[in-house]
């Protein structure tokens, strides 16, 4: 007599697996944190995505008139492809996870602000470092150093195609 595991691991039995969707669409914020990566994000955004939202820059402002006794509050804004400035914290809260993209060697310090927002809502932050044509190993190290303390997964992705592959694999 066949064991249960033997019977259930055939190609025939695989045909009886439930076909209904086993997940809901994800909301993913994809954020370029420097000028060079903004062009990359802009290019990727032209593909068809299910729940990915793309942002090409991060900027900051301060409240002009803090109440007496309060410190000046810093606000972070994301710029989307339509040129709208959207509140970073609100966008992170709406997302299931966040992907930051930086071109190797660029200033990636802004990731700490995004990381703080992710921590506030317990969202995973993934980091992609994209080497450019003239990128040195030191540039890559520099970017990794900025991103490492903040990301749950850090990838050096040679080529823009990998970003698309990864977002597709993650059902973004």
């Amino acid at each position, binding site marked *: 007599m066949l064991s249960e595991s033997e019977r259930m691991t055939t190609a025939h039995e695989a045909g009886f697996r439930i076909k209904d969707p086993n997940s809901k669409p994800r909301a993913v914020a994809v954020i370029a944190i420097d000028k060079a990566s903004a062009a990359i994000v802009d290019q990727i955004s032209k593909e068809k995505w299910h729940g990915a939202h793309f942002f090409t820059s991060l900027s900051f402002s301060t409240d002009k008139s803090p109440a007496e006794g309060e410190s000046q509050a810093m606000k972070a804004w994301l710029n989307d492809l339509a040129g709208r400035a959207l509140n970073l914290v609100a966008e992170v809260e709406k997302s299931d996870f966040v992907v930051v993209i930086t071109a190797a060697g660029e200033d990636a310090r802004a990731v700490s602000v995004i990381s703080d927002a992710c921590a506030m809502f317990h969202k995973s932050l993934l980091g992609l470092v994209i080497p450019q044509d003239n990128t040195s190993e030191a540039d890559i190290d520099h970017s990794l150093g900025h991103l490492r303390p903040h990301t749950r997964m850090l990838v050096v992705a040679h080529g823009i195609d990998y970003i698309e592959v990864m977002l597709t694999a*993650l059902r973004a």
Partner: protein
Amino acid sequence: MLKKEQNDYITQTGPGTPMGNLFRCYWMPALLSEELPEPDCPPVRVKLLSERLIAFRDTEGRLGLIDEFCAHRGPSLWFGRNEECGLRCPYHGWKFDVTGQCVDVPSEPAESGYAKKIKLKSYPLIEKGGVLWTYMGDPEKQPPEPEFEFCTVPLNQTFSSKRLQECNWLQAMEGGIDSSHVSFLHRGDLNNDPLFKGAAGNKYNLGDMAPVFEVVESSGGLLIGARRNAEDDQYYWRITPWVMPCYTGVPPRGDHPLHGHFWVPIDDENCWAWSYDYHPTRALTDSEVAAMRDGKGVHVKYVPGTYIPLANKTNDYLMDRAAQKAGRTFSGVEGIGMQDASLQESMGPVCDRTRENLVGTDNGIIMARHRLMRAAKALADKGTQPPGVDVEHQKVRQAALLLKRDVQYKDGAKEALIAKKGVRQTSV
């Protein structure tokens, strides 16, 4: 998640398929040396990349890997008589040498030259590190012999085994580059298995269930670093090398031997899970070898006389719910190898990746698939030699080490990740 056509592309390795052509660029483990122990020993059936073959060691000790079936009427040469420098079909006496050349057709006059017109397909078979390796690609593009460290150290420093795994090669291999499962599936074994226990690094594995990953491309594949928090402003890093298309190294523990795997397609629904253990600088001890032969570490116990795991799907992997409940094993299956295999086989003969839901920490898997498909396409479109063929790509080592938090692992572990003769592994 992969689309169905992508899943088919990457999982199918038969003749003429893009991934099959990719595999045919490499030397691959075909048999253990012990399977052909002496001249004129019994021939052994081999199925690789969906091709049926027969292996034998002739009277002079030469190794042959040829089409399994006699060119006359098609019976299996497994029934053949291995004698006088050839394998003779017992049906009508046709005889073939290690190159597949027919050397005798008894029904035809020897002077007629008829035998010279008959030749079976054959592949080179070489012996290295206790393993018989074959290359199934274009003879004109045959690469240099493999230089993975486990097959280049003296024989008393290395031990290899293989087991049948009844699923597609890719879902098996993906387990080898997914080190996040260790803290769950194998947690019961880290402090008990004789080939794992006692390592200082184990406490970090068990103490931090949410490792943080860093994936970088290497010349031959990937380096997948998993970091866990350690004391004194340090990270505990475990770095897994993957060399294309199917070699993985498991980061070491203490002074235990290094181990890892090859995942070799038999056909699209079965593969050989090869497991190796070696130490770069010393002979394996008797107790280590005994443990390996007893199925400890990454090895398995066998159904006697076979390379089929003793715990297998026909006996529900000897599932022990009491051990699972008591926490002696996390899944109820004993042994690291079969803990992996049982779950991977349960996915079905070929995992349906259209339904999976990967997360960010699966980026090692995502990138490995991407590199495999990219290399197969470059080979098909431009004839580009894929990564991992160059022997320099094979001289990598797995490593486990503590680094200050501000040190980049690819810098801090740079020397540790290179296989160097006579230099001990870097391990915690």
